């Protein structure tokens, strides 16, 4: 039976009316364009046009401006104008780690790519990692050290800070150094030096979204606060309770790589089965084979039930279920059948829940096989108690001073307002931030820091896996990296670079045997960016301490509304709120940008007459509504990270801040709250929804099947393709390419919808940011969008993600209709777009069945109306010099990153060798964390892309049985092939 897909609830309920309303909206919009919003008409335009033509004719006689060419005075050896250098470095911000390569063109870092040598992130990146390069060129950054918000010299700042510290030390008053989890071993050493100099300083670690539940539970079960290494690739059964491990939980890039390799059907025949129990539809839930909606208050009971089910399967007697989730028995039997090959994880911060998780994994024998302790994850080490103690001391006035590094508790701690009030009373408050935030602006001193692309550093994300951070540009402003500041205040005059090198000489150099000379080791590590040290040896012994208490503490799920607070893929905890790329990245599920909103369940919305963009009042806060299919009954969810007030011009006052709603106790911080009051209102609030503006009209676009069927028939779910191939005839000559024929394969089974490719493409191709209003006008410019389709019941639908970019059709409908031949076909099968030829008729846009062409309706660059990074000299430094910055009135679209194709072809030609398969990687392909995209030459019979999608111009060579093309029946001959999504359901 063919799956019926729907993209939004309106469409599902009444497709005809929905389409009519869409057409109506489109018409109204076009009318406003023709008529003009202030009543000017086409005739007025012609008048103006006449005058302009006259003016232009006169101006045409002007000369071109004189351009200057300024060579280097002394050319640095490694810099060649016109050629990019790549430097290995490390991204670690907001508790997210990634080993990266930084592309530096003529001294400017312009792009971040994944480092394939890293054993942790393995060439993958996330949307935030991709976007972080723009933070370097943020206008909001501080230009130098500050005292009372006035510029001050480093000498004065250092002198005064040291004096204050000395005085507080002699008075024996406590000073707190507040940092997030520090994964840099050298920085930890610097801090140790500071603590030795000033015994009155206490180091408190604070992560906005901690995993203290896991840490405290593991300290009881295993004797140490440790986050184990989860091998999602080795697991046959993955059961996740509210852990969004493909999106935001712990180490999503690493987990996505592993998860997708455990489900890769292009090379293997094994596929894990993934159960997700959650309330709010997360990216992980959307990718799950079986998703079970569950209220957060049900989690304890559900875990206990699972534990008891497993006990029963092991032959013991056990209690009966409390949670009311019937599917748990099949989860248990699946886990039992795959003992030692399962993973059970929970995103809960409740220690008791994690204790039960540990007991389950221990009973199944997962510890040591799929969950190991030799490479524990170190990126979130903070527990809640020290922070609560710090806030207590701060508010009761017993604290003397505070030094802040990379933390913003005024914004992201539920007691932020108390902290804000108390900060002003401190005699010493120093921040080391490189840009304003809610906390830094309240501090007396700001020892302005640097961006990570301007800094030295190291990192140990997992025990024994080290990586280095190296500066790729001179600090743009008079900042000093915080490590260096702390060294100065510890009266150590050594430069941090030397300190770091000495640290590596002493600590890491002895850990290896490959190099006998330190500089060789250092240079090698710096070049590769990573160094692999030995793993921890022993498996800690499990004990069931407090397990019975935990099981007994399980109560019945509470009744009433519950509100979930979650991090989004784009903004995370809000640190990057001033990044316009991330603000405009549509949420993977809701497809909403530029706002946070409250997701409500479908049935409730129907019953109460609430629809998208309605406003409801939750616990006294007005929130715009998004009706989210799959949202568990009696739950709502709203994203953290919005509502910044001191982030900068882009990020200020976007959405609302829900960190104050986080439930804080002295032991943990819970990111959901029970007993929420909900009231409906008649108000509405516009949201920038992009979910319905790429209609596919109900054709079999996203295809899928089940694992069981695929094993019997590899083309399951793709049967219709046979029919399409049979009818593939044409009067035209078959396209033929003498050299290359570029193709792109997209494995829908691997794509998790994380949005990394969208941002990567945006950075690479100078795609403008257009703001909320224009997104609402359906003008979003992303060259690669990720369509999200639902199928099945709205209460708990199946989700399919499908990245769609220009399909580079070999029989392209857009090419035929261009009146000025601005988009002809190339000898390598590319659908070309010549911006300087385009006159903006938009015929191509209208004739493209995939809706992938974008029109520059307005001047988005250097325009005060679009006051984002392209409106400032600093922000424009991020632009890729190899790609034209488009102006108003031209159409643009995906080019398969033709600049990269040209670059690699050129290298091959100069070296006189054929291109290697996999040598050319468009931006989306390069850093895909799930390796869902494969690019290559379809004329090369040995290439990976040929194996997957065959030769798209030849029906005789169809490629993988799962391969199909979008709207193949139109005979557009796309060069992009999609591989059917396979679900490992148990039915």
């Amino acid at each position, binding site marked *: 039976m063919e799956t019926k897909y729907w993209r939004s609830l309106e469409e599902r309920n009444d497709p005809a009316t929905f389409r009519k309303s869409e057409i109506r909206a489109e018409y109204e919009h076009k009318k406003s364009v023709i008529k003009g919003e202030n009543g000017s008409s086409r005739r007025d335009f012609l008048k103006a046009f006449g005058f302009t033509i006259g003016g232009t*004719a*006169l101006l*045409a*006689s002007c000369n*071109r401006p*004189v*351009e*200057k*060419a*300024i*060579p*280097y*005075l*002394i*050319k640095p050896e490694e810099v*060649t*104008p*016109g*050629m990019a250098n790549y430097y290995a470095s490390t991204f670690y911000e907001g508790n997210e780690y990634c080993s990266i390569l930084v592309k530096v063109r003529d001294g400017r870092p312009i792009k971040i790519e994944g480092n394939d040598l890293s054993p942790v992130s393995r060439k993958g990146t996330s949307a935030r990692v991709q976007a972080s390069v723009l933070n370097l060129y943020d206008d909001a950054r501080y230009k130098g050290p500050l005292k009372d918000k006035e510029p001050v010299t480093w000498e004065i700042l250092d002198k005064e800070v040291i004096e204050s510290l000395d005085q507080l030390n002699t008075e024996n008053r406590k000073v707190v150094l507040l940092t997030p989890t520090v994964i840099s071993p050298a920085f930890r050493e610097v801090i140790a030096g500071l603590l030795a100099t000033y015994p009155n300083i206490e180091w408190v670690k604070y992560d906005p979204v901690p995993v203290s539940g896991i840490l405290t539970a593991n300290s009881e079960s295993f004797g140490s606060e440790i986050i184990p290494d989860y091998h999602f690739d080795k697991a046959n059964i993955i059961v996740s309770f509210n852990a969004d491990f493909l999106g935001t939980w712990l180490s999503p890039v690493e987990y996505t790589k592993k998860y997708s390799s455990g489900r890769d059907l292009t090379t293997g025949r094994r596929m894990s089965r993934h159960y997700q129990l959650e309330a709010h539809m997360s990216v992980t839930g959307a990718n799950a084979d079986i998703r079970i909606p569950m209220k957060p208050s049900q989690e304890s009971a559900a875990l206990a039930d699972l534990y008891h089910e497993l006990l029963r399967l092991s032959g013991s007697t056990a209690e009966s279920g409390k949670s009311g989730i019937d599917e748990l028995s099949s989860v248990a039997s699946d886990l039992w059948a795959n003992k030692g090959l399962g993973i059970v994880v929970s995103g809960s911060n409740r220690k008791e829940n994690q204790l039960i998780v540990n007991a389950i994994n221990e009973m199944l024998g997962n510890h040591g096989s799929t969950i190991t302790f030799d490479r524990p994850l170190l990126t979130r080490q903070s527990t809640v108690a020290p922070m609560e103690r710090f806030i207590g001391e701060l508010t009761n006035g017993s604290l003397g001073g505070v030094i802040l590094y990379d933390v913003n508790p005024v914004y992201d701690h539920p007691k932020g307002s108390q902290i804000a009030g108390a900060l002003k009373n401190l005699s010493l408050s120093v921040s080391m931030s490189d840009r304003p935030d809610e906390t830094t602006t309240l501090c007396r001193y700001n020892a302005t820091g640097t961006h990570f692309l301007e800094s030295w550093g190291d990192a140990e994300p997992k025990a024994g896996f080290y990586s280095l951070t190296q500066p790729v540009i001179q600090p743009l402003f008079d900042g000093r990296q915080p490590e260096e500041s702390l060294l100065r205040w510890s009266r150590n005059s050594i430069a941090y670079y030397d300190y770091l090198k000495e640290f590596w000489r002493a600590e890491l150099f002895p850990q290896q045997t490959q190099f006998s000379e330190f500089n060789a080791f250092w240079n090698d590590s710096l070049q590769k960016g990573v160094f692999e040290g030995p793993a921890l040896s022993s498996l800690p012994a499990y004990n069931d301490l407090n397990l019975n208490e935990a099981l007994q503490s399980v109560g019945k799920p509470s009744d009433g509304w519950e509100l979930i607070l979650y991090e989004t893929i784009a903004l995370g905890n809000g640190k990057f709120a001033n990044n316009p790329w991330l603000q405009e990245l549509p949420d993977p599920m809701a497809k909403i940008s530029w706002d946070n909103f409250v997701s409500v369940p479908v049935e409730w919305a129907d019953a109460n007459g609430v629809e998208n963009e309605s406003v409801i009042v939750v616990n006294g806060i007005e929130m715009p509504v998004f009706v989210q299919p799959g949202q568990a009954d009696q739950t709502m969810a709203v994203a953290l990270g919005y509502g910044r007030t001191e982030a900068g011009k882009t990020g200020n006052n976007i959405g609302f801040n829900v960190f104050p709603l986080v439930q804080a106790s002295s032991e943990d911080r819970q990111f959901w709250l029970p007993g929420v009051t909900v009231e409906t209102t008649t108000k509405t609030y516009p949201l920038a929804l992009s979910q319905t503006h790429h209609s596919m009209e109900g054709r079999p676009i996203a295809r899928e099947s089940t694992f069981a069927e695929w094993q019997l028939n590899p083309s399951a779910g793709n049967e219709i393709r046979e029919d399409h191939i049979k009818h593939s005839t044409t009067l035209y000559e078959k396209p*033929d390419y*003498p*050299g*290359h024929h570029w193709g792109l394969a997209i494995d829908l089974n691997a794509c998790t919808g994380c949005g990394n490719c969208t941002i990567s493409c945006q950075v690479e191709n100078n795609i403008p940011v257009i703001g909320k209003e224009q997104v609402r006008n359906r003008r979003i410019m992303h060259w690669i969008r990720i369509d999200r389709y639902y199928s099945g019941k709205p209460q708990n639908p199946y989700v399919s993600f499908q990245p769609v970019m220009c399909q580079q059709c070999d029989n392209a409908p857009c090419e035929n209709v261009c009146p000025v031949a601005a988009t*002809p076909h*190339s*000898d*390598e099968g*590319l659908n*070309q*777009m*010549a*911006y*300087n*030829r385009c006159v903006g008729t938009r015929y191509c846009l209208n004739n493209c069945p995939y809706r992938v062409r974008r029109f520059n309706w307005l001047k988005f660059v250097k325009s005060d109306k679009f006051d984002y990074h392209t409106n400032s000299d600093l922000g424009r430094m991020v632009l890729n010099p*190899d*790609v*034209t910055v488009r102006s108003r009135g031209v159409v643009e679209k995906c*080019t398969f990153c*033709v*600049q990269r194709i*040209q670059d690699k*072809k*050129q290298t*091959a*030609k*100069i*070296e*006189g*060798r*054929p*291109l290697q398969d996999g040598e050319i990687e468009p931006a989306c392909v390069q850093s895909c964390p799930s390796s869902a995209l494969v690019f290559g*030459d379809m*004329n*090369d019979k040995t290439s990976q892309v040929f194996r997957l999608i065959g030769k798209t111009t030849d029906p005789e060579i169809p490629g993988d049985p799962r391969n199909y093309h979008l709207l193949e029946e139109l005979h557009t001959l796309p060069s992009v092939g999609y591989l059917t999504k396979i679900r490992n359901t148990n039915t």
Partner: protein
Amino acid sequence: MKYADITKFWLPRHVLPFFIFIAGFLLLMPVEVLGDTESQESHSVSLADVRRGERFFKGLLPFNREHQACASCHNLSPTDTLNWNPSAYELAQKFLTRDINEFRNAVMQPSGAKMTASHQGFVLEDEDLGHIKAYLDDMAMKGPESTKPTFFNLLIFLGLGLILTWALVEMLFLRKIRYKFIPVLLFLGAFGAQAQMVITDAIRLGRQKAYAPDQPIKFSHAVHVGEQGIDCMYCHTTADHSKSAGLPATDLCMNCHVLIREGTNSGKFEIAKIIESHETGDPIEWTRIHNLPEHVFFSHAVHVGAAKLDCASCHGPVEEMHVMRQHSDLSMGWCVNCHRDTQVDFNDNGYYDTYIKLHEQMKAGEIDTIRAVDTGANDCMRCHY
């Protein structure tokens, strides 16, 4: 009163266009031409000194001398393309911060061979030198003598427009001239001339063939390439592996000029600029000659490194150019035509092994050569992306 009466009373009818013409001319004239702007007097030097220095420099003062006026070698206008000697403005800038003694030494007892020869036998009173210095200082502060902006083309265009309009009005309304063919001819002639100007300009738009601007240093490719036989790649080091051919960094110039401090043509003045740049750390701001039209991505590497093209095939006889100029028009037609004609190294360059079908056709004798265009060199996205 009718319109005709007003015009009769106030203006001779046919003079009206002329007045508009004059009005337009006055509007477009640079302000300096209309009023003599008084320069600010400095404290020690009077305006009279500056004026006297100016007349002396230009050779307008009758004084007892054997030699030519300063201005005959040191051009007053900033454009002195073919003059090896430093222009007056350059001298002015150089000596602005130096005192009169240094100036006297430089003029009267020059160190370089070329200058010694040309300044030989100079008899100049200290007073005159002072005046000249005052004039030069004044110039250095005010900027070089401005060359009048060329409104010539625009004026012709507007003038033709007026003729055209008048002829049209005459034909349709006034009908004063007995012979109808006169306004018709005038109309056609003016219209034709205007159209021709627009078309020529439109074709030239964005093209700068034969563009040879003055450079901050009178660097001669003829001397370096032609006479000294230095290879192009010695200075333009990255031409075979980067998009950009690379301008030599100052330290590269210093490889030779650390020793060579005086040139045959330009003496010491020009080479001193490199040394100064090296010492002060201010890079030399060359004027870019080869400006590709917008939206084109060109790579030297693929043309020099892979295709092994001779530099001269695009840049012309550089070894003969004292003043570097753009040899080709760098138009798209020029690129495309070359791609149509140029054979690629199809059999020897391993990259082309990918083109299996073309190799087979070649073996079968169906085609004998592969030109750049056959491998997609004229695809839009080869250069536009």
